[in-house]
């Protein structure tokens, strides 16, 4: 039932897909660039959706299906069932059931230690890196059964990108940061790498600021630029889902605004899940919001609904600042 992600292999797929950013309306740069992507239907979207959502990773499904899959944007991209996670003996996630729709922004809010980051890190199995973590239940991301023994975790992480709380560029040049994932996939062609780096930096609204100093160390960038570089780095490997773990909490208000703008811009192409401490931020950027408390999913609804007419008393108490 799990189609092997290896069958088509990341490298050939990347090679046969069209160049990332050839639309003329994107090359203008400047603030117009951000708006342009929002609503214009892109030729690559059906392709992307087919890859992102439950279509098998075989080369090319028949055309009729690809037409239908363009509409799958609203379908579920990530779903968890009875998902439990233990740190040693401590039950940190107590049976989470959530369906996150594709091509939208979902915010996860809740007080510190409620398990929101842990849940986020489950979607690309980053918790594997922590000793003593055990899980039960299932998570599906698109067609991938995340915890299935046949799942290639490296391929999973390529398709489910992640942006961390603290900007964490590698101490390498800006260019090398952006192409890191591509090199890991085995891409070597210089021109190809450069084209993809430029496209990713444009999508992350960073190109104009760094195009003249791609060879300089990424550590010379400001915090906000570093965070956008991390987003560009994540976009370069063409993920379908982007997980963001408090992506703006270490940034000043201006940089935060840029990141939020970027999130809104990116959701036409990607499924984005944002963990945030900041309820205003959740209200500004997300379509749906999940409220977690002590390892449980208390409420999950459209953002507007959740913030204006929460169905749970706990949610209401939290968003009105009675605790947390």
């Amino acid at each position, binding site marked *: 039932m799990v189609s092997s992600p290896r069958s088509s292999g990341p490298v050939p797929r990347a090679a046969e897909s069209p160049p990332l950013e050839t639309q003329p309306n994107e090359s203008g740069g400047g603030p117009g660039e951000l708006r342009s992507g929002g609503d214009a239907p892109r030729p690559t979207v059906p392709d992307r959706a087919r890859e992102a959502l439950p279509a098998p990773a075989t080369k090319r499904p028949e055309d009729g299906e690809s037409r239908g899959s363009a509409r799958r944007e609203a379908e579920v991209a990530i779903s968890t069932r009875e998902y439990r996670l233990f740190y040693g003996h401590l039950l940190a996630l107590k049976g989470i059931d959530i369906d996150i729709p594709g091509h939208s922004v979902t915010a996860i809010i809740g007080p510190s230690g409620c398990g929101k980051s842990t849940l986020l890190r489950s979607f690309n199995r980053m918790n594997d890196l922590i000793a003593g973590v055990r899980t039960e239940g299932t998570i599906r991301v698109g067609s991938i059964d995340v915890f299935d023994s046949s799942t290639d975790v490296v391929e999973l992480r390529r398709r489910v990108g992640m942006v961390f709380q603290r900007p964490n560029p590698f101490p390498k040049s800006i260019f090398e940061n952006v192409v890191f994932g591509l090199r890991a996939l085995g891409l070597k062609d210089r021109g190809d790498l450069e084209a993809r780096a430029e496209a990713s930096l444009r999508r992350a609204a960073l190109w104009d600021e760094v195009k003249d100093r791609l060879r*300089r160390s990424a550590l010379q960038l400001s915090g906000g630029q570093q965070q956008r570089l991390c987003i560009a780095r994540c976009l370069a490997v063409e993920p379908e889902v982007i997980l963001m773990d408090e992506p703006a909490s270490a940034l000043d208000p201006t940089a935060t605004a840029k990141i939020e703008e970027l999130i809104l811009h990116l959701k036409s192409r990607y499924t984005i899940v944002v963990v945030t401490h900041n309820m205003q931020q959740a209200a500004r950027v997300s379509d749906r919001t999940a409220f977690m408390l002590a390892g449980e999913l208390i409420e999950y609804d459209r953002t507007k609904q959740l913030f204006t007419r929460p169905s749970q008393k706990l949610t209401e108490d939290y968003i009105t600042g009675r605790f947390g």
Partner: protein
Amino acid sequence: MSSTTWNPFSPLIKSRSHDLTGTGLKALSATAAFLIVAMVAVIMGNIAWFGARTLSWEFLTTAPRQGMTAGGIFPAIFGTLALVVMMIVALVPFGVGAAVYLAEYARPDAWFTRIIRFSINNLAGVPSIVFGLFGLGFFVHFIGRSIDRGLGLDVTWGQPALIWAALTLALLNLPVVIVTTEEALRAVPNDMREASMALGATRWQTVWSVLLPQAAPGILTGAILSISRGAGEVAPIMFTGAAYFLPYLPTSPTDQFMELGYHVFVLATQSPDVDATRPLLYGTVLVLLLLTFALNLVAILLRARLRAQLSGRS
């Protein structure tokens, strides 16, 4: 010192200027610290003073003559450099490999990991003369002779040689490189591992293109320490390859070689004419020190450059 600052508890404490025990201990520890400086100054000064008189172009570029009472030490300089280079080539990949396993792959509490750590700690405690005997028995007699037998050669590999001495020294320095490298790897923030793996890099790709470059300064520290030790150790090489005197330079890894530390030992203990040898002895020691400093300096400069790169300053 701090008698002017207000201290609510001061009536309970004896005035510090009358704290005889404290003053005495402070004097003792200062003396100990000073003695170290004094000893280094005496050793270095003595060697530099007498050694400098012997140093000359001829001394550096010719071979010993007249039963080592005249001539230079070029073969020993050459042999030392060859030995250190070969040692580093064997040592760094092996030591870094072991450190990567320990820091990135091994489960810290597994019994196998404990055995590895136990072995490394013990290896670090083995006297160097034992390494020499081990090198003779294992590398020269066992490995070397097996190669000869396997290839149907006369005694070629199965005798003391540059390569066996270098490997013995590498073994001696292995714990140093493993420990410094492992610490350098552990000092790389976990952010970096997560960033790399989240981009779809495999564990090995993460090690190779993220962690090792960032640990490179630490690895160089290990290399620096081993160079200093490797260039000066005599015991491990006297059975495994160093020669008393050779009329030619080593041209293959299976040749024997002269080495500065061993040459010092020979000049100091085996000379037919002690007075004639003394200036040569001073000169040789000075050259050994300078060579070690120079090798260290190269590694330290390289490390400084790497650090600047990693911190984004270049």
